[in-house]
């Protein structure tokens, strides 16, 4: 066991911090208050990711042939920590690096890899994830958006929902049904769909989280060439599960939480708010939760770095991330003084960022079910 950072890794982190200090505009807090999906952040991310890419920092851990630098997976962990802790200036592009890249690398055709991985590692493309449907959330295998083969293309009809960052996205990683609904997970296929294809309609859903957060997407006779299929027909479930493993342990949520704790304590002190014993205990407990989440997260990164298959460790880590995030989100409101109850304040911002962690990318209950089955070996609920 070795918990320390190497000299290289430490200096990489310092360089990133200097870079952020130089690149984030003075009004960054205001600009980022609606979350990574807002128009302002999506636009900012295009230039910002380009600059990261130019320094070789956007996808450092990818193989050279796909625009990376063969750096260890840990570099990406450090990058993610610094980015998320500072309000995610990569905007929605964090998803590209977290789960799209690894999934495309594993399942993409040569042509798909060449095209998409190059775009991602250049930092100028936005994606969205079309998994959930009105009647297929936790029960993803019941999805019913249909793709019928017509010559050398598919005709897609159906609806997705809760699609994050979709309004500004150029491509959708879309799950469709290509066999009878009764086949459940055996009849699902992945299509990589350009969002400007005729027949796609995106509607923003008003949310409590921030602007342009999530959307409904309607597909009416949308023609997608067979060449845009990822993997074989009806092999989509395994691909989606692979992607989810990366997504679930993608954002180092504890990094933002830990930084928030520092900010709220500084803010409370500078305003002369009393941090009594009860608050101190909560702060310390929340800090400990962030730290535990960090170690559990690293354990998953370590598995990946050693090319081991994913285990229930990632579900456990996800639950720990969620708990830490929520504890800090609550404290930010509680300790934030009167202004915490205003939109866009430190308290409100962190509360909104922390809130959906237990639902997005699979609910806490589903994660707990998976821990019970995979780690504890308990039978499924009938």
């Amino acid at each position: 066991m070795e918990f320390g950072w190497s000299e290289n890794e430490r200096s990489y982190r310092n360089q990133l911090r200097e870079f952020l200090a130089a690149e984030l505009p003075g009004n960054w807090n205001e600009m980022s208050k609606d979350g990574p999906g807002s128009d302002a952040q999506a636009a900012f991310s295009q230039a910002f990711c380009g600059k990261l890419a130019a320094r070789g920092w956007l996808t450092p851990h990818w193989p050279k042939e796909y625009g990376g630098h063969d750096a260890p997976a840990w570099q990406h962990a450090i990058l993610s920590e610094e980015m998320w802790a500072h309000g995610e200036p990569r905007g929605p592009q964090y998803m590209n690096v977290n789960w799209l890249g690894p999934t495309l690398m594993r399942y993409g055709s040569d042509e798909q890899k060449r095209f998409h991985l190059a775009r991602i590692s250049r930092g100028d493309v936005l994606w969205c994830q079309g998994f959930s449907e009105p009647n297929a959330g936790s029960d993803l295998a019941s999805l019913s958006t249909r793709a019928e083969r017509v010559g050398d293309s598919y005709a897609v009809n159906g609806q997705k929902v809760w699609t994050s960052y979709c309004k500004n996205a150029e491509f959708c990683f879309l799950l469709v049904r290509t066999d009878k609904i009764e086949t459940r997970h055996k009849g699902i296929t992945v299509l990589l769909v350009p969002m400007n294809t005729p027949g796609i309609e995106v509607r923003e859903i008003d949310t409590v989280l921030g602007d342009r957060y999530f959307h409904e997407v309607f597909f009416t006779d949308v023609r997608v060439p067979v060449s845009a299929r990822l993997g074989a027909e009806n092999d989509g479930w395994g691909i989606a599960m692979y992607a989810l493993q990366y997504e679930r342990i993608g954002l180092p949520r504890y990094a933002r939480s830990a930084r928030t704790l520092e900010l709220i304590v500084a803010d409370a002190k500078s305003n002369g708010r009393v941090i009594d014993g009860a608050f101190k205990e909560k702060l310390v407990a929340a800090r400990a939760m962030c730290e535990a989440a960090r170690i559990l997260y690293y354990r998953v990164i370590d598995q990946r770095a050693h090319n081991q298959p994913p285990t229930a460790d990632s579900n456990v880590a996800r639950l720990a991330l969620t708990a830490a995030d929520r504890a800090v989100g609550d404290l930010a409101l509680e300790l934030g003084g009167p202004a915490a109850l205003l939109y866009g304040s430190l308290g409100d911002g962190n509360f909104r960022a922390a809130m959906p962690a237990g639902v997005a990318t699979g609910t806490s209950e589903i994660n707990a079910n998976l821990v019970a089955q995979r780690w504890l070996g308990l039978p499924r609920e009938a």
Partner: protein
Amino acid sequence: MNFRLSEDEAALKAEVRRFCEAEITLERLRKVEFPTGIGFDPSLWKELSEMGVFGLRQPEAAGGAGLGLASAVLVFVELGRRLAPGPTIATHLASGLGADFSQSAAEGKSIVGSVEVPLSASEPLLIEYLEQLNVLLTLRPDGIYRLDPKSLSAEACVPLDPLTPVYELAKLPAGERIAGADRAQTWRLEASVLAAAELVGIAEATLELALQYSKTREQFGRPIGSFQALKHMMSDMLIRKEVARAAVYAAGATFDDPQAGDFARAAKAARITAIDAAMKNARACIQIYGGMGYTWEAAPHYYLKRAFVLDRSFA
């Protein structure tokens, strides 16, 4: 000892519930969401006045109903359950501050807000409902002061809770002292019990919403309420709500009958259990709604936000 509501109490509760369910609908509240709307509904306020919500505890001779705090908490649970807008607690308590207050409450003209001072000099001076008020009371260590809100200039803020309008003041003048330190102290305790009652209403409403949703939403071919994880979540919601309801009723009854115990303690017990129930139940409700819980359209977020506001009020 008698744990049952009296006939009158049960009738009061039922009547207020009927009124609130008919009149205080989310559709109606949404129309006044702040800051696009004014965050207040004058015609609804008038109806609440006419129902006697504000004069409830004033003598009948003064146009009130002559009831006690035990009855008032029944009413305020119902108001919380439907997210009744407006400074209900301060207006209700203000009716006890003298003839001109009880008079205008009886006439349905009283809209009284309150704020605890001093606030830290470096924090923004935020006042709820300021532009709607006709009286602003400040609670200070040495008593209660009265101010004319129309004499204050303030700016509208964008609050976390769209159903509680908030304004920022540049400066808060001293005002006219209308009651002493003791009166201010009981005001705080009574207010905290009424806030606890509203919080119980929130705990109850969010349990009802969660139940309803979990019985109709299906995943894996069955209602999500059939999964034990959710059943236990909702049993816990019920337990928290019942614990808090018992504590709030006890606080009301203790105030009316000082023989029954120490009101200050009972008030604290009510407050602590009610805030716990409201916050945790609202969160659990959002969790049970899944993705739907994060939409503006669904009701649960309004309850969580109101709980945050009440957590800060009269604390």
